[in-house]
């Protein structure tokens, strides 16, 4: 596996970009080959499987124009889901079956324990399903070029952990790859890449050390320390995953390709509905379009809507990992969404519009919802349900409540991280003005000096060991 934040990746990226710019006619072949090589670094077996699944989806997509299109759609969905379930959930489901029926299944099928989760399988499965559904619903035509379709599925910046792209968003860009406008996107690409590297190397990797230590010793933590553990992981996860996503978007821009953004400072959300519009956006919109709406969405009454929300979020939880901790996390967010829907109705009846539109109410809502999110992340991070329950219990019911200089330092750090989140939001909102002022006020040598300093800081202060991204395991 080659990680984005490593020097070898940048060396390869530089070489590939040089060829890409020099040989516009060979761009598609180059991207196809590079994406295959990038994926194959994680293992030849998973790469062969991925190629096979891609080819199958390509022909299934074409078959959706024919007379038995519904059958082919279901065949495609079953193929993709079965592939994911086999590699990701076999062990999980067999373990449940063993417990429920009190039988020993695993010793009879020992290969299950050795199953290795192919890199990016959860992401490419969703991408292919949405492609087939979109073709079936005639939102997009089926791809007529296997090479283009392969790059749609495997484009190396997003193959491991997204963003999950729709056929209608990515395939048309790939079809015009020889004439794509690249120069204008380079600045944007480098900007996103720099932001991602900053978040990963200088924030997420440093927080990870403390978050891991707190979670490892969670049994002995009091209420304050448990909250610190949850806060730290909350920020570690955000900075880690958004770093990956922004690097993916940035790298794609260097090739002239636009990928969707996955995050919009989610911890400034005032409720669950807003949160899912700002957190892992390409997944939440996928869940909305291909699970929640097909289940009936909000078209079949309030109760059914709540049930659909709960089911969709539970599936989202299970998608993240084959463990009950993830399912509970998904259910918890389902309940938060239902809770917000009910509260919204209640709020409308109260009629206190002025109060609900005030800054104070917004601030209070963000504060409360941020803490509810932190509780959810405990389930997401905990190694077992028992650990998660114990930690949440201590967060809710005071236990060995003590504030010390030690905890004070961490609380200050967490406040700093939140401030950084606010700054990021401001930068995003004013990116164009900041970029313009930067170019207008500082001459090229000064800008180059600042970029040199930034590169040096990234290299010097990156951790010795290369750490992978949290979402790689999903």
């Amino acid at each position: 596996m080659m990680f984005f934040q490593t020097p070898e990746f940048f060396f390869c990226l530089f070489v590939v970009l040089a060829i890409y710019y020099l040989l516009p006619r060979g761009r598609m072949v180059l991207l196809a080959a590079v994406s295959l090589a990038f994926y194959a670094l994680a293992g030849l077996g998973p790469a062969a499987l991925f190629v096979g699944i891609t080819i199958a989806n390509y022909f299934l997509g074409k078959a959706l124009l024919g007379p038995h299109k519904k059958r082919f759609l279901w065949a495609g969905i079953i193929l993709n889901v079965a592939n994911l379930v086999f590699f990701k959930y076999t062990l999980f489901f067999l373990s449940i079956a063993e417990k429920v029926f009190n039988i020993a299944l695993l010793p009879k099928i020992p290969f299950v324990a050795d199953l290795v989760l192919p890199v990016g399988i959860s992401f490419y499965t969703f991408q292919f399903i949405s492609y087939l559904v979109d073709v079936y619903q005639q939102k997009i035509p089926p791809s007529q070029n296997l090479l283009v379709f392969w790059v749609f599925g495997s484009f190396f910046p997003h193959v491991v952990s997204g963003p999950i792209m729709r056929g209608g968003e990515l395939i048309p860009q790939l079809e015009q790859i020889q004439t794509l406008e690249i120069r204008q996107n380079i600045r944007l690409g480098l900007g996103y890449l720099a932001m991602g590297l900053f978040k990963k190397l200088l924030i997420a990797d440093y927080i990870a050390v403390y978050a891991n230590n707190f979670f490892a010793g969670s049994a002995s933590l009091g209420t304050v320390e448990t909250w610190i553990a949850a806060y730290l992981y909350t920020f570690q996860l955000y900075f880690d995953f958004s770093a990956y996503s922004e690097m993916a978007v940035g790298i794609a821009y260097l090739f002239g390709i636009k990928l969707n953004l996955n995050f919009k400072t989610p911890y400034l959300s005032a409720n669950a509905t807003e949160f899912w519009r700002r957190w892992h956006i390409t997944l939440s919109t996928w869940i909305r379009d291909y699970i929640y709406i097909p289940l009936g969405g909000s078209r079949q009454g309030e109760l059914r809507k709540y049930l659909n929300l709960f089911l969709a979020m539970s599936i989202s939880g299970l998608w993240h990992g084959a463990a009950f901790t993830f399912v509970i996390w998904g259910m918890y967010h389902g309940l938060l969404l239902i809770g917000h829907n009910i509260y919204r109705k209640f709020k409308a009846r109260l009629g206190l519009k002025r109060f609900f539109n005030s800054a104070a109410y917004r601030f209070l809502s963000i504060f409360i919802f941020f803490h509810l999110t932190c509780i959810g992340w405990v389930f997401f991070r905990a190694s077992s349900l028992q650990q998660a329950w114990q930690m949440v219990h201590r967060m809710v019911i005071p236990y060995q409540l003590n504030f010390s200089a030690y905890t004070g330092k961490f609380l200050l750090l967490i406040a700093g991280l939140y401030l950084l989140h606010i700054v990021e939001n401001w930068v995003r909102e004013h990116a164009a003005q900041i970029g313009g002022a930067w170019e207008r006020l500082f001459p090229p040598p000064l800008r180059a000096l600042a970029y040199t300093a930034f590169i040096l800081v990234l290299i010097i202060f990156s951790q010795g060991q290369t750490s992978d991204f949290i979402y790689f395991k999903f």
Partner: protein
Amino acid sequence: MKKTAVYLLLFLLIIELILPGVVPLKSAYDSRMNYTVVKDNPANIDVVLDQIKHQIDSQNIKDYVIILGDSVAHSGPGPADESIGARLQEYYLLAGQKKAVFNLAMPAMQTGDIYTMILKLDEHGISTENLIINLIYAGFVERNPDPPVVFWLQKDLARLDPASYEQVTPQLTANGKIAREGPTQKLNRLITERLAIFRYKDFIKADLQHRFYELTDRQEENALGDPRPWYQKEGLQKLLASPEYQRGFAVKPFDMSQGNPQIFFLEKIIKHQQGKKTLVFMAPVNYELVPQVHDAGYQSNLQTVKDYFAVRQVAYIDFHGLVDQRLFSDHVHLIGPGYSLMAQRLGEESLAGENQL
């Protein structure tokens, strides 16, 4: 944008060229190797050696002693200024000797690492004319398969002496110390070992940290652990009762054939050091914490090692019984005055001029 890119490349090139000359040696080496910096990336040892070579050349140092060994010679858990290297340097100064001391010992270094370090010294053009080598009793005990006979420097051994590497490959494989290097790791190594910014990054970081401590008037902690004497520490006896530690004091007669990887590498070292000054010392052991020392088998093993070096005419000091029990920090490491005492004895012996192979 083009102009900015050109300036950026120019600045990066300037940094690449000037960096090796501006990173201060203290961040790489201060009376001993900076263990914090080296432990996560053994390739940093080459940077230390580069810097030492630079110092030797720029200051025209002709007479110097290199210390090799494990945590005892590195002098853990205490601070650098109380280490054997620092104390030996003081001893030479007081004795009116213009000898420089470079302590390149590192915790967990095994005999295979020591041999590889000697080859690396040759590679960097640093003389091995005057060596002091530290061994421990546990190094001779049969490995099962832990510990690996080369703990840090497998890649260097494979490069510098492929035949020896091949010889000990089964032992290293059994210890999980041989990881197949994939294409990405190879490319990473090629880049990070060649570009100065990557080579020096850990040292720059350490130096910046050092300056930050100075600026904020805080004491920088360079001790590796708790430097208090052993009798002030709780739980040591319980810790030493674990099989992992007990195995290191086994009283079974040592296998002194080349089938024992320890002997295999000692023979290599002795051969390499023919005609050079080499002083080997056996680290002492705390009798109170390791009662096996009184066992006849243990004593017989110590005698066997002594005879081994005597036959090969290698200067050898066995520190068992030469260090007061109160000077130990744990079962084998010492507190400052203990290392001082050892340094003095090593200084006397090294100046006696009887240690030429």
